[in-house]
């Protein structure tokens, strides 16, 4: 099979020497995965190279790293598809997590967040005793499976801006995990789960980075949005969820009365006058304030919309 010589630049790191780049040349064909590239560098050129890899088929979540700056699984990356025009590839460890050695990072902070969402099904006692069989529609299974497909690779958390800013935010993967149980008809602890998840859900900025980088297409941000749909069933109150309730009520109200979402009113009602003013000043500084004054008119087919709202209730 046709082979090409490629140059792999790896950002190495150890406690003694700190971080430095090192280059390796080797041949690859159109099938060669980056995990195989690393394995060959290690076994033929630099035995000290440290990285994690196990399944080489994108199901174990070991080989997370940055390839050409993009958070990726090495085993899901074909070397010749990743090289630039000079046949070079840059490989470095994931952002956010502390570096341990070369491409290996310490992702304990990721696991800690996963543990926080009670990541296990609590079935009815009669089921655990074997007295009752659990049923689940194929549709419910598909929904649960979507969010269960997370392989604990940590890429989304390393890419998420909110996690870095906000200690209380559980992060994308933990939200996907947590919601997977909220949504599972076999589980008995929905309200406890909402207590764990609801406040944190509103700490997501909906930037969709997690959606972009997830190698399993888990779409954690969608799990977060779906969690918010349970706000009605959530019994607790935190400053953020109080605001969220106001926001939801206002949206509903606005649509009911005007047929559309008036951003300025929504803002004012959700965050209150003081907060709105502070934000308005920020907006003024950044030259965006004029949008707040853009006049919102009512839409024409209000009756239809009212009908729809009535139906919803």
């Amino acid at each position, binding site marked *: *099979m046709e082979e090409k010589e490629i140059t792999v630049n790896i950002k190495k790191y*150890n*406690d*003694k020497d700190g971080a430095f780049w090192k280059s390796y040349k080797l041949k690859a*064909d*159109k*099938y060669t*995965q980056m*995990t*195989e590239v690393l*394995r060959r560098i*290690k*076994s*033929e050129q630099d*035995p*000290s*190279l*440290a*990285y*994690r*890899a*196990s*399944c*080489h*088929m*994108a*199901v*174990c*979540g*070991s080989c997370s790293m940055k390839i050409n700056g993009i958070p990726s699984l090495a085993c*899901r990356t*074909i070397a010749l598809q990743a090289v630039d025009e000079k046949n070079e590839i840059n490989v470095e460890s994931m952002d956010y997590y502390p570096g*341990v*050695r070369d491409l*290996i990072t*310490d992702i304990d902070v990721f*696991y800690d967040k996963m*543990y926080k969402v009670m*990541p*296990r*099904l609590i*079935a009815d006692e009669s089921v655990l005793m*074997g007295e009752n*069989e*659990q*049923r*689940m*529609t*194929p549709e*419910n*299974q598909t929904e*649960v*499976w979507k969010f*269960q*497909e997370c*392989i*604990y690779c940590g890429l989304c958390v390393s890419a998420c801006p909110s996690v870095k800013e906000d200690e209380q935010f559980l992060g994308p993967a933990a939200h996907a995990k947590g919601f997977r*149980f909220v949504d*599972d008809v*076999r589980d008995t602890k929905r309200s406890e789960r909402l207590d764990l998840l609801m406040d944190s859900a509103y700490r997501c900025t909906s930037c969709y980075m997690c959606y972009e980088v997830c190698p399993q297409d888990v779409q954690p941000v969608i799990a977060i949005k779906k969690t918010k749909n349970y706000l009605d069933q959530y019994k607790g109150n935190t400053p953020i969820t109080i605001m969220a309730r106001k926001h939801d009520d206002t949206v509903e109200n606005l649509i009911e009365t005007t047929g559309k979402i008036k951003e300025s009113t929504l803002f004012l009602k959700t965050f209150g006058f003081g907060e709105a003013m502070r934000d308005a000043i920020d907006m003024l500084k950044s030259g965006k304030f004029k949008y707040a004054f853009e006049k919102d008119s009512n839409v024409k087919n209000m009756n239809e919309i009212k009908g729809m709202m009535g139906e919803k209730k």
Partner: protein
Amino acid sequence: MEKKEYDAVILGGGLAGLMAANIVAAAGFSVAVVSKVFPTRSHSAAAEGGIAAYMMGNSDPNDDPDFMSYDEVKGGDYLVDQDAAELLSKKSGEIVSLLDAWGAPFNRQPDGRIALRYFGGQTYPRTRFIADKTGMALLHTLFEHSTGFKNIEYYNEYYVLDIVKEGNNVNGLVAMEMKTLNPIYLKSRALLIASGGIGMMYKHTTNSYINTGDGQGIALRSGVALKDPEFVQFHPTGLYPSDILISEAARAEGAILKNNKGERFMAKYAPHKFDLAPRDIVSRSMTIEIREGRGFEGGYLGLDLRHLGKKYIMERLALAYDAAKNFSGVDASEEMIPVRPAQHYFMGGIDVDTTGTNHDLNGIFSAGESACVSVHGANRLGSNSLLETVVYGRETGNTMVEFLKTHKNVETNSNVEPIIDAAYAYIKRETGEHFGVLTEELRDIMWDNVGIFRDNDKLAEAVSKIKDLRVRAKSMYVTDKTSNYNTELFNALETRNMLDVAYTMATAALNRKETRGAHFRDDFPERDDKNWMKHTITYLAGDEVKISYKPVTYTRWKPEVRVY
């Protein structure tokens, strides 16, 4: 050196280890689970196709557990211990219900019950599945369930060096924190080895990089026997050239193997079961086709899914489709997937009975792929390995609970320094051979000489070459002198284990002068029930493999010719 004491220590965070951990912890005992990778990264995650189970009221109306046991016994070419197979079938339904209760999201039928499909060697369909990532979903379920126990402590990314013995009793194990190379002595009276398979010692394997036979090597070094190590399964459909598994589910859902003439060649070798004949038969047939010039250039055959239609493929075989696409650039709805056989599973393993107990040492147990109970005999049927990990993981967990109730921890602390010194010696040495060279040579020898077709000459050559490698390995050295996540050291330690296990495998294969299941001898092409209906038992004593034999347990099925 750090020392901690538990009631039970479990080597391995795969399905077998985690199932046992859950059971022992539920009985109130303290448990340490030691794994060289975070548990969800264990090889179990790679299992795709499914888990076999007869479920009462949710199986083919004509099926029953006896048919299932019969399939296992015949599939294993009558080297199966029939009591073990019967237990496996009998408990299969309840274990799937338990996994369901713990949250495993099995695919469903329209009425909400767990769905099922056919797998190779089954008389009736029994395989339960979770899309085509069954292993991953089950592994996560067991791991997540275990997070509910306060009395389970995880030692993730700790590499186990060796078992500790005091006289004839287990006294824990010694592991090394991989991040720092700090050793730790985990003391316990019960120890479970659930360390998985051996794939990396073969040049072509579907296994994870971490499957290096550590537990089997550790067992051999402590005087524990391996049973039937000559039996290695080669899976028919490794993706060419990466050897990533294309699950048997593909053929179960209707994919067909074709040679370069476009012929469905399995019709010739297995006129009733075709492409769904047991794996040993399909792998051999494929090798013959390739050998006789009916393969494609490079040495592979075609797996044809095209007639299934894109929609069906995406729904039921997404992983196979993605694998072909991502790793061979093939769109399976338009082209055939290039496949060839690759090492897949180790039927042999640590010699245990149906309770998971080994009788060489007091307090040692094994379950999962590292064990040989023997439910797979000379050849494993698809979907039965996941089943074995959870059924026997639970049985063994229960046995350990009983053991813990009647035994106390050994009072003395053993001297574990020699174990640690032996590991550090690789770093201290300034010259010698490098692990990479030895491993690559071993992988070639095992593939060429202890592979799908074997004979006296090949095997004798393998034994002598491995002997030689073991001598060279004594002067193996590690260039990386840091204690900062030194993966090179762990690769060297893995090489040591692979060599010890490979040595017993080649020797046992040389000794078995018959063909049975996956052990195919060109020079003895027939099964020989009169002389060879027995298990091989191997011990490693220094440079020598000691071989003895032990009868197979029969309950009701008499050997018959195995045709499919």
